[in-house]
């Protein structure tokens, strides 16, 4: 139905355009003596004004997007120790970008308006100026040098893993189309694994080496629980195609590559419960639930079930095209206090006890 309505609206718009063209044609003054289909002073003037209108449009769409969608971005409220550094860099870079964008778009469109052609006027013959070229080479060099230095510092601090912090080692295991987590157990050392060792009949689903002593206490789960405040080192593995472990709230992402182990480490700083209480998240949850209630009304009218109320959870999403159900490859992440985490992990089965014989 929506589609049909859309099509009808579009048809009407096309008719409107057709009318506009006719008006344009009728408004044409006699073109005798002029080269056909080449802009006249009238065209120059009209399009010059439209350039200014377009500049206003660009500014307007920028403002509208920031006001309306500006609170959607993940540029605040991060949940990891390194998150704020990335967010600061993002905000500074955005500031630079929008400063440059506002000025250059103004110059471009204003010049297009100001110098719109008139018969008989001659343009300024101005072909070269080394000073100007030097200025707009050096200014970007300085600005970019600053951004590069800041960016690389951030990058190195984010990607560097400090083993002396005694991070919790967790494997993220990707397959079409779900995630598993493997905890290293009491020894905090992951047992050896290879997909060639997968034995579905014995429920060795991640291909752990059954003879490796380190593997015995490993714990495989379908939900990722993390204790708050402790560094985590993720080891990523994939069994079939490329996947990408994307944890936007933690400003973390790394590809999972079959045949190799990749890694990414961070320290979660905000528990799931605390995050749900933050004003930004409260607002987002309210907004989303409002939308879901509206949607549910329509669904109930159609005789279908209403949508569940949304409650926030951190998510691990797949962010590398991986096949048919790529759009639904997700795992919940629960950040909790050390006590809650200990209680949860104690309930999980160790690898040696999970095997079937």
């Amino acid at each position, binding site marked *: 139905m929506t589609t049909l309505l859309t099509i009808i609206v579009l048809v009407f718009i096309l008719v409107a355009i057709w009318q506009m063209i006719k008006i344009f044609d009728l408004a044409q003054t006699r073109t005798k003596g002029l080269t056909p289909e080449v802009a006249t002073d009238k065209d120059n003037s009209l399009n010059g004004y439209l350039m200014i209108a*377009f500049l206003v449009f660009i500014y307007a769409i920028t403002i509208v997007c920031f006001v309306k969608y500006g609170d959607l971005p993940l540029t605040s409220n991060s949940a990891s120790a390194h998150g704020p550094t990335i967010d600061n860099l993002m905000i500074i870079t955005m500031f630079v970008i929008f400063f440059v964008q506002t000025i*250059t778009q103004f110059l*471009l469109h204003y010049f297009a308006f100001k110098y719109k052609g008139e018969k008989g006027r001659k343009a*300024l013959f101005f072909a070269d100026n080394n000073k100007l070229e030097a200025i707009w080479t050096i200014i*970007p060099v300085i600005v970019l040098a600053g951004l*590069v230095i800041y960016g690389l510092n951030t990058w190195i601090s984010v990607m560097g893993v400090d083993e002396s912090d005694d991070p919790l080692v967790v494997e993220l295991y990707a397959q079409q189309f779900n995630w598993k987590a493997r905890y290293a157990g009491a020894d905090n050392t992951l047992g050896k694994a290879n997909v060639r060792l997968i034995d579905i009949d014995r429920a060795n689903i991640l291909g752990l080496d059954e003879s490796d002593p380190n593997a015995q206490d490993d714990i495989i789960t379908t939900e990722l629980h993390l204790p708050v405040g402790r560094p985590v080192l993720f080891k990523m593995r994939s069994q*079939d195609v490329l996947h990408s472990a994307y944890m936007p709230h933690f400003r973390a992402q790394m590809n999972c590559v079959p045949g190799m182990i990749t890694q990414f480490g961070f320290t979660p700083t905000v528990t799931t419960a605390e995050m749900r209480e933050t004003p930004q998240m409260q607002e987002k949850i309210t907004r989303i639930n409002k939308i879901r209630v509206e949607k549910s009304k329509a669904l109930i009218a159609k005789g279908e079930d209403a949508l*569940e109320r949304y409650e926030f959870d951190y998510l691990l999403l797949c962010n590398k095209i991986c096949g048919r159900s790529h*759009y639904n490859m997700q795992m919940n992440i629960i950040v909790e206090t050390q006590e809650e985490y200990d209680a949860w992990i104690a309930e999980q089965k160790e690898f040696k006890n999970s095997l079937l014989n």
Partner: protein
Amino acid sequence: MSAHADNHAHDDDHGLHHHKETFITKYIFSQDHKMIAKQYLVTATILGVVAVVLSMMMRMQLAWPEEPNVIFEALLGKWAPDGVMDADIYLALVTIHGTLMVFFVLTGGLSGTFSNLLIPLQIGARDMASGFLNMVSYWLFFLSGVIMVGSLFVEAGPAAAGWTIYPPLSALPMAQGGSGMGMTLWLVSMAFFIASSLLGSLNYIVTVINLRTKGMSMTRLPLTIWAFFVTAIIGVVSFPVLLSAALLLIMDRSFGTSFFLSDIFIQGEVLHYQGGSPVLFEHLFWFLGHPEVYIVLLPALGITSEVLATNSRKPIFGYRAMIASILAIAFLSTIVWGHHMFISGMNPFLGSVFTFTTLLIAIPSAVKSFNFITTLWKGNLQMNPAMLFSIGLVSTFITGGLTGIILGDSALDINVHDTYFVVAHFHLVMGISALYGMFAGIYHWYPKMFGRMLNKNLGYIHFWITAICAYGVFFPMHFIGMAGLPRRYYTNSNFPLFDDLANVNVVITLFALFGGLVQLIYLYNFFVSMFYGKKAVMNPWKSTTLEWTTPVEHVHGNWPGAIPHVYRWSYDYSKPGHDEDFVPQNVPLMEGEEELQH
């Protein structure tokens, strides 16, 4: 120098010699560069329409995910039972849209059309260095296009691993329906395409180096030619690497090798592959893939330089700086590919290096943008449709280019990699910008191609609505990307987290549909003006370059008489001391007149 002169003597003979042409030699297996340019343009237009229709379907799916849609039912058949799109075909639409647009429309279509049309005409040559290779190049392009479109009709579905076709997804038919016959055809098509592109590029390079008319030194060349020339060099350097990646992938797929595959367990069985790495494929792919961005963009920027100068009635500002920035961009483009792979598992130190080289590219890009803007300053701007598209290009190039500073910065890329932020960025900076460049070229050189004028009012409407829709589609997209929405999702409804982005998606889709439909106005203008447009005069835009010294009616060999000689650079607009506001390149210097030390 004497060899040079001999060449021209020979060329002049050739120009006078008219041989009989049949329909087939004139319109189909033509070796005339002007006809080949038109063949490229029409083929690319048709493929472009297909690609746009695919993207419209993607947008409708994203805006109204679960709803049955009569359009899907009509166009997708078994892939949309009861009008609900299948998840596999969504990924196929993504893949084929990207492939057609990047390679067929904006590489083959853009370079193929304008390099062919303009290189001989603007440098003063009778034709390309090898007319025969040029013809072969077009027909390989045509063949690869037919195969690519044909792959849409494969039983198990067309290639659906994204235009980047990363293995193992693209290598294993059991990973995805589209990785069977669909992917085979994709690879075969690309092999032909690359062959076509290499033949074309070699021809462009040789022609520019050897066949310039007397007086046409490299620093008198129009910037279009510089852009086409450097683009061809980048193509020759980087396309073979993609070919090798494609061949190795074919080996992995069909002959059991393990270049890109290792330790794979899929659908309950372990595959024999061992020791390869998908990351190797990513390196090979992006060694072409990133220069490809500039293969798409540089010709558009070259066309813009020419159109802005002509319509501003001013010399392009900073001619030598423009050449230097083209060369700098070309060089840097071959050492930045790793910025597509910051989080691929590549060593983070390499990431630092690529961040550095990537942000360097912003410098020549900034120089180009400022030079474009300064070209307008104190000009006498003639707002022809081509001019509007060129100004539009500068606008989207800046908007899209600036967000590259975020994506090129490895630390920031972690969080926006593969989200809609990327989609917004590259569509603005290379998709829309290159498309605007192509439109600018078409509106500007249509009279040269078809001897008739495009209707300017339709052109104005085409530009303004397209411009508004382009921003309407891609500007909000940055924000849903920053909200963490991954690209290439068939629907977002499995993530309540993204529910508040659904209405943004509807807005984007409405702009996209409208923007897509407006292209019908352009198509109407394009095809109808070919037969009913107003007759063109010899030099409608009062341009200085040599192509406007050829007669409106095409002749084989371009100039009925001798090839004109060149006495000045290509941007003598509004030069003091001349009555007219332009001095064609073939006009000798007046007594006492000095050529600008540009």
